């Protein structure tokens, strides 16, 4: 292939990335888009985190110190919207983009141009959402759940809130279609569905959840929009509507949404724990069925968010027991992870530490979830800091630790260099200690009766609140260490990583060189016992 003709042809068929901004704006390569998603979500993580620090600074002591209540409410609302739709969800989509084609032996995502759109919509959506902070009436302050009639009192920001949610939904739907089509149509020969790695499986289920519920959220906010501007009365009692209806529709989206944020993390730890236990995943197929059961059950438990709106006894019983039923497949998962480690030759590199932290702390969040599922008890806990403690335990050491574990686990594959292991471990220990210092006292605050979403509180809550605030600032600063570790790794400061990176990990992504070339698996690989699951 050294003839001039062949060279010219090779030039024309250049497979390296385009130089400059075009590479990113016109990106269709799954690795480039994955990288952009991950960077975007990291930026959003810090934006949402700064808002959390404003909240915790104000709550450091009783009384109003730094911000006025309306701004405080804007911070709680924006923190949630940014963390849910800007940080956690795009980060998992970024991982899906990077890893799914490499894990199933596909050359790229099935719909690369749509992939470009689904990413570039996000910066637009969040610019719109962020701009509401500077509008008359301020940013949305009704809580991320956008309950009417409160949300209808939002100032000029209201239509911008709705349209930004529409755009986020659009991006998620396109991303989900892309993931499903890629997984269904582009797997390597002989990779049957049950031979797929768990991360791919959990993402397939997540993508179906996204397709099923993001349009429902879009519908709900559209109804808010028409109620406000076009004279409809979906949620206005005077016109025959019902504000509680919004809660039903919102939580029909909202509960599957929490599994959208956790299932991919389940997939991540299902990859990492076997690698560092040097054993195959225990019960791969039962993991698949457990994840599917969780996804199904997530559609029939929504009203457990609404036990206090006034529901008949039969309704409360149904939603209480259906919710508790979710503990069964989740228990299967926790059992399988534990059984995977049983008698394994375990080592504790940073990804494994984050996975173990996930396992312990997510389970604590799961248990407080079971407490909240008890309808008569929930009436006491409802809208208290106990709820705040619960969902932060499943989201921070749950979803976020899952993401951190994934980044440490696959970063040597992405950059071709190891991260600094000591700093990684330090990041883990600081994060784990501070996350508990931040959120554990909130259980006590909630049980003692402190309501959520308030800028001021009774002096009896002062001690636990100041502890939580110290923890939050510590957690926030610890994440700067993460950024440093990532930057050092991207700048190739660490040891060179081998193709396998870890000690005989399973999966196709470890059969390509490190760093992963711009194009991988242009011819589909044959899978062997080392690269298939189940």
């Amino acid at each position, binding site marked *: 292939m050294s003839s001039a003709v062949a060279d010219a042809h090779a030039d024309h068929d250049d497979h390296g990335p385009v130089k400059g901004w075009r590479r990113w704006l016109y990106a269709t390569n799954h690795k480039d888009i994955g990288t952009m998603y991950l960077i975007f979500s990291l930026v959003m993580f810090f934006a949402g985190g700064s808002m959390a620090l404003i909240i915790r600074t104000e709550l450091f002591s009783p009384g109003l110190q730094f911000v006025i209540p309306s701004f405080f409410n804007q911070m709680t609302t924006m923190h949630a919207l940014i963390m849910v739709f800007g940080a956690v969800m795009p980060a998992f989509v970024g991982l899906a983009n990077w890893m799914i084609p490499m894990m199933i032996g596909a050359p790229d995502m*099935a*719909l690369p141009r749509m992939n470009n759109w689904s990413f570039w919509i996000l910066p637009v959506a969040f610019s719109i959402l962020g701009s509401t902070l500077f509008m008359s009436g301020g940013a949305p302050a009704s809580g991320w759940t956008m*309950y009417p*009639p*409160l949300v209808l009192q939002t100032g000029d920001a209201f239509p911008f809130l709705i349209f930004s949610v529409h755009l986020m939904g659009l991006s998620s*739907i396109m991303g*989900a*279609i892309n993931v*499903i*089509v890629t997984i*269904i*149509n*582009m*797997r*390597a*020969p*002989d*990779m*049957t569905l049950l031979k797929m790695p768990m991360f791919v499986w959990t993402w397939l289920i997540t993508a179906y959840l996204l*397709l*099923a*519920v*993001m*349009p*429902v*959220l*879009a*519908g*709900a906010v559209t*109804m808010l929009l028409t109620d*406000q501007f076009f*004279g409809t*009365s*979906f949620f*206005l*009692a*005077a*016109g*025959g509507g*019902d*504000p*509680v*209806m919004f809660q*039903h*529709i919102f939580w*029909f989206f909202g509960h599957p949404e929490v599994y959208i944020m956790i299932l991919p993390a389940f997939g991540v730890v299902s990859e990492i724990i076997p690698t560092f236990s040097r054993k195959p995943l225990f019960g791969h197929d039962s993991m698949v069925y457990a994840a599917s059961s969780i996804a199904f059950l997530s559609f029939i438990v929504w009203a457990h968010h609404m036990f*206090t*709106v*006034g*529901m*008949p006894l039969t*309704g409360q019983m149904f939603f209480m027991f259906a919710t508790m039923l979710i503990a069964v497949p989740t228990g299967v998962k926790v059992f399988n992870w534990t059984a995977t480690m049983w008698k394994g030759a375990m080592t504790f590199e940073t990804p494994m530490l984050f996975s173990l932290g996930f396992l312990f702390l997510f389970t604590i969040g799961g248990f407080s979830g079971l407490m909240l599922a008890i309808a008569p008890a929930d009436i006491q806990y409802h809208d208290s800091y106990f709820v705040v403690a619960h969902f932060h335990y499943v989201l921070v050491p749950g979803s976020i630790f899952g993401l951190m574990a994934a980044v440490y686990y696959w970063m040597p594959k992405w950059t071709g260099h190891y991260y600094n292991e000591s700093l990684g471990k330090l990041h883990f220990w600081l994060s784990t200690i501070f996350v508990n210092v931040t959120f554990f006292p909130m259980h006590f605050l909630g049980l003692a009766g402190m309501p959520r979403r308030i800028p001021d509180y009774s002096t009896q809550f002062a001690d636990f609140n100041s502890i939580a605030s110290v923890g939050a600032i510590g957690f926030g600063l610890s994440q700067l260490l993460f950024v440093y570790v990532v930057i050092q790794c991207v700048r190739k400061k660490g040891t060179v990583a081998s193709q396998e990176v870890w000690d005989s990990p399973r999966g196709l992504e470890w059969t390509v060189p490190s760093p992963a070339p711009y194009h991988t698996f242009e*011819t*589909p690989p044959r899978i062997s016992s080392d690269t298939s699951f189940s």
Partner: protein
Amino acid sequence: MQKSGQPEPISTKALSFRLLALAVAMFGFGFLLVPIYDAFCEVTGFGGKTANSAAVDVVEMVDQDRELKLEFVTTVNQYAPWEFHSSVDSMTVHPGGIYEATFIARNLTDKHKIAQAVPSVAPQQAASFFKKLECFCFTTQEFLPGEEKEMPVRFIVDSDLPDYIDTITLSYTFFDTARLTDESAEMAHPEHSASKTGSHNVTR
């Protein structure tokens, strides 16, 4: 495409469009939830929802042995400029008997106003047994500037009402229908709500 192990079940394009159709269908389903919930609550009486039209099967035997306490609650929505109360706080009724209660509302503004009252019954198990024969809540009510109106509601409590219920609360919330059409003007005058005692938002 490049898959050889399994038969190609569906092309990428066809699958993408099917998934897109699923998303569009779910968008529609979100709207469909509204009539579904309404029908569900109408049938079951969940949420204290009572019929929005006159009951027709009025032939009932009056059960003189059973006494029920009927309490009235009146609420004015945040932006509605009315004074609104019932003529009595409560009354004693027998299941099966026809009764009438009177509610009084006064327009506090010097403008022509239209109101809509929204009823609710608690406990919600009683909702489907509380039958209104005539109610000011069936239609909107027009008020001249400063006008005071007496508005009747005629009703029967069905004698099939479960035995364990001895008290029924009938609640009316008064809404300004202009809130629906001329909402910006109303938002500009929120002092109506502040100047009224006993009024509060129906937000939960």
